[in-house]
């Protein structure tokens, strides 16, 4: 058997002659790669370009809190340092976006359109668009796109309130995978932040014992730890607090504080070096 994937499913050349790539305007040839786009009839997103890193979020007694830094990386280049990755939808819903920034901006448009049609027009009052509805909509959009093999390269966290007023926090990503939890992070944060947040809420219903101050301290701590260890992170970030019965609080240009670097001066070399 020929193990070259590019020859699979083709009539063999020695019986039928060379395959004619002009058929159906498919100019793809054996030397096609992602750098040579003219060789493809059509190509969908295969990797993100400008990216945003973790979103960290937590439920507390009477609301949710969410943070994301303001960085848009271009590979390892920290290219844009003023990206806002927390999107507000309506009065009491926030969507935190990580992953491709251009796809985030597309989602931003969709959400703005959603807000205009569902919240502004034909709204007789009382029938508001809430976080579960926004999440359901986004999950349908993302799953639809991945099913077309053309995903929006993002992982999202939607925070807000259920119809009965309880806090709502749910994740959805480029595959259309969703789950809910009392502490959710995307990307690097799912490795570093969630273990820290889980100390506060070991089990899902435990968020009811967490105060706003505790939640805020835990999130600020996570942002600091992420800045220590995530090479694609920034110490400047935004933080949103949504509390039942209160106006959504959107804090911008926060800084990671109380970092400890003093110990570094005592570290010398990688082993035996004494000076």
């Amino acid at each position, binding site marked *: 058997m020929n193990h070259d994937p590019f020859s699979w499913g083709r009539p063999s050349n020695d019986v039928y002659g060379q395959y004619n790539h002009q058929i159906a305007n498919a100019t793809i040839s054996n030397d096609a790669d992602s750098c040579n786009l003219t060789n493809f009839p059509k190509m969908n997103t295969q990797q993100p370009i400008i990216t945003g890193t973790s979103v960290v979020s937590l439920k507390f007694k009477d609301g949710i809190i969410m943070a994301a830094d303001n960085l848009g990386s271009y590979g390892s280049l920290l290219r844009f340092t003023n990206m806002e990755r927390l999107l507000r939808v309506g009065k009491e819903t926030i969507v935190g976006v990580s992953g491709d920034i251009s796809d985030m901006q597309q989602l931003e448009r969709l959400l703005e359109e959603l807000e205009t049609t*569902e919240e502004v027009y*034909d*709204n*007789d*009052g*009382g*029938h508001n*668009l809430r976080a*579960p*509805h926004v999440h*359901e*909509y986004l999950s*349908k959009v993302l799953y639809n796109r991945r099913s077309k093999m053309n995903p929006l390269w993002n992982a999202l966290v939607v925070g807000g309130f259920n*119809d009965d007023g309880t806090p709502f926090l749910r994740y959805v990503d480029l595959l259309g995978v969703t789950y809910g939890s009392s502490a959710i992070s995307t990307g690097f944060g799912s490795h570093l932040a969630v273990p820290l947040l889980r100390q506060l809420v070991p089990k899902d219903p435990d968020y009811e014992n967490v105060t706003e101050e505790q939640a805020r301290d835990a999130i600020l701590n996570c942002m600091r730890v992420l800045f220590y260890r995530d090479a694609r992170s920034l110490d400047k970030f935004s933080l949103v607090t949504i509390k039942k019965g209160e106006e959504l609080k959107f804090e911008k240009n926060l800084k990671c504080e109380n970092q400890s670097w003093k110990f570094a001066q005592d570290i010398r070399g990688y082993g035996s070096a004494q000076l």
Partner: protein
Amino acid sequence: MFRNNYDNDSVTYSPTGRLFQVEYALEAIKQGSAAVGLVSKNHVVLAALKRNAEELGSYQKKIIKVDDHMGIALAGLAPDGRVLSNYLRKQAMSSKMIFNRPLSTSKAVLSIADKAQENTQSYGSRPYGVGLLVSGYDETGAHLYEFQPSGSVLEYYGAAIGARSQAARTYLERNLETVRETESVDELIVHGLNALRDTLSQDVELTFKNTSISVVGKDTNFTIYDDADVQQYLDKLDSVSNARNRDDDDEEGNNETQGDTNENTGNDVPSEDRMETDE
């Protein structure tokens, strides 16, 4: 001879600013059998009178379920009602699919109103010839809307459409307070049937064959009662005869004659819109 030059299509205004094709569509509703809707605090009831073309025929369906929390009663051209109810069902399903929430009653009725309105300003189409009573229960409570093919939508505590519906409106106006305060669904249905009974013409009575009832409300999915299921509510009516057949109650009978005369005048096109031609 007198001829009207302003009613050939729905895009032509008369000199007095009226759209005759739309008004003719409203007439089609008055030809249909009556449907009544009424709202209490937590429930909406629709009651409708079904007609059969002949003794051997079946009765035309008047109440259509849209979703678990919404349904309509129609008067006028049933096929147009079917088209609109199918559209409402699609809207309800897509709201469930996309947002995972039930479609709000106001949004539903406005969506078909927009559809109907488009038919009043484009050449080659005709307005829908059907009026709807849309009942629904959503997070903002129980609602009843009247839809007209002109595209106008109004919310009501009690409404009636179709032939001789004025009599039912009169009944609802008189009993508005009690209807609004009613806690029991059965009482609300009896009020609906009383109103519907007043629309009947002479020698016709409500039977389980010609009556259709629906309920929707708090903790109550949209339910249609037809045929044998209606009998239990008909049994609750205090008297089996309608106002027209009641000899002892002249007052209500008079009211209905008034309603009839109103309908008749509605058929006439006012003289100012009539053009004299040499035909």
